[in-house]
Structures are given as structure tokens and as C-alpha cells.
């Protein structure tokens, strides 16, 4: 049971759930949390591959993913706060001024 495929299945399920959330939800903050979930699924796959291949490189890549995720979260939340200040909403369907 403790095989590479079991961990990859969990990782893939998490990615699918994150994708589902991005498509389904209209609250920008929840969409952002779903994006975090997808990044974490990638991290889990990297650690699993690293462990079962006996190499260190996958574990080291997790550092870079965490750093990029932190930078992305900081900038994204600043954008959401700026948007809320201007439009008084975080719902995607009300942020459609580029469509018209």
C-alpha cells in the first residue's frame, strides 16, 4: 500500500479538488485558497518522487515552490485588497469591467 502510486493518487486528488474549487467558486479569496491547494499537491508529488527514487533534488525543489507561493500570496492578497477598496466586492461576477 505504501507505494509511490498511493501518494501520487492523493496528490492527484488534491489537484483535482483544487481545480474543482477554482471553477466552482466565485469568491476570489476561496479561488486563491484553491490555487494554494494545487501548489501543495505538486509539492506532495515532488516529495514522493524524491523519496522513492532515493534522490534529494525533489525535496530541495519544495523550497522554491514554497518561496514562490509565499510571494504569490503576498502580491495576490494585496491586489485583492486594492480591488476591494475600489469596487467594494470580491465576487468574480461583479468584477467584469474588462468584459464590456
Amino acid at each position, binding site marked *: 500500500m505504501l507505494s509511490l502510486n498511493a501518494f501520487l493518487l*492523493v496528490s492527484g486528488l488534491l489537484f*483535482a479538488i483544487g481545480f474543482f474549487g477554482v471553477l466552482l467558486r466565485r469568491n476570489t479569496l476561496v479561488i486563491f485558497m484553491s490555487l494554494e491547494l494545487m501548489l501543495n499537491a505538486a509539492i506532495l508529488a515532488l516529495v514522493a518522487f524524491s523519496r522513492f527514487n532515493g534522490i534529494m533534488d525533489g525535496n530541495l525543489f519544495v523550497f522554491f515552490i514554497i518561496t514562490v507561493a509565499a510571494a504569490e500570496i503576498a502580491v495576490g492578497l494585496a491586489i485583492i485588497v486594492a480591488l476591494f477598496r475600489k469596487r467594494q466586492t470580491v465576487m468574480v461576477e461583479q468584477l467584469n469591467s474588462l468584459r464590456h
Partner: protein
Amino acid sequence: MDIFFILFALLTVVPAFLMVVTPNPVAGAVFLILSFIGMACLFVLLEAFFLAVLQILVYAGAIMVLFLFIIMLLDVREVEKLRPNTVTAAAAGVSLLLLVLGLIAVLAGDGLSGQLLSALPAVPDYPAADEPLGLAQKVKAYGYGLFTKYMLPFQLTGILLLIAMIGVIVLSKKRAAEEGAESAGADS
């Protein structure tokens, strides 16, 4: 070992799904913290102890607290009253179903034995990576890898963090024109 894997996998996947379907964003953030803790437990099973600690500290600690802070700062009163568009919801459900079916077909086709993917070549096909670092649990091994083989990416992430910091300061600063308009509004 198996019972722990199933327990931790459920602790990771079930709160993640609840995060997506719960209408309240604060409850969603708490479910996501739970999911990250489950993932840290999976890292312990994979013998990446340092990454498990880092997952709790950085993700469950720092990033999700930032999320909760922003959710409470924005104080969104209407909790997504409008039901999701039926077409969008159907498309999301179908894509979730297809992804899960594809995963099961690829990974569980041979009963999760791992035959399929361990048959992949272990040797990378680009020349710079022909000396993979050996797996180790010590924190020293992580530091050694970061400061020798991945020195350039390490420095680039430093620059990336600096850029993000400057970007956030610029984004959250009030513009001069906006400020002028607001003070004019306050005067009248």
C-alpha cells in the same frame, strides 16, 4: 503503516473538499489549515521530517494566518448568496470527475503496486542533472544542496522575494491622485 497512510490521506483530502464546498470563507480557511496539517503528516511518512515542520510553520502558520487576516479585514458580509451558475457548476463537476477517473485509470490500474511509474527511467535526460544528490533526512543535506547545486536558483528566489515585497508596498500605497480626490471629497 498502511492504517496511518489511510488516516493521513483522509485527513488531507476530506478537509480540502470541505474547503471547496463550504460557503463561509473563514470555515474554508480553517479546513485548509487542517488539510495542510494532514499533508505534513504524509511528509513524515515519506521521511521528509524537515519539510513536515516547514509545512506547518510556513503554510499552516504564516500563509493561512495572512489569509484569515485578509478575510477579516475585508469583512465580506454577503456570504455568496447567488447560487453558482448551473453551467459552471456542471462543467466543474464533470472536470473533477474526469480528472479523478483518469488518475484512477493511470495509477490504480494495477492495484496501486507502483509498477507503472517505477518503470520510468530514473536517469534524467538533461546533462546538468546527471549527479543527483543522495536522499538524506538531515537538515544539513538540505543546506548543502541549496548552497552548492542550487546556488543560482536560491539567489534568484531572494530577488523574487524582494520584487514581491516592493510590489506589495507599491500596490497597497494610496496613489497621490486618489488621495487628493478623497481629501477634496472630505472638504465638501
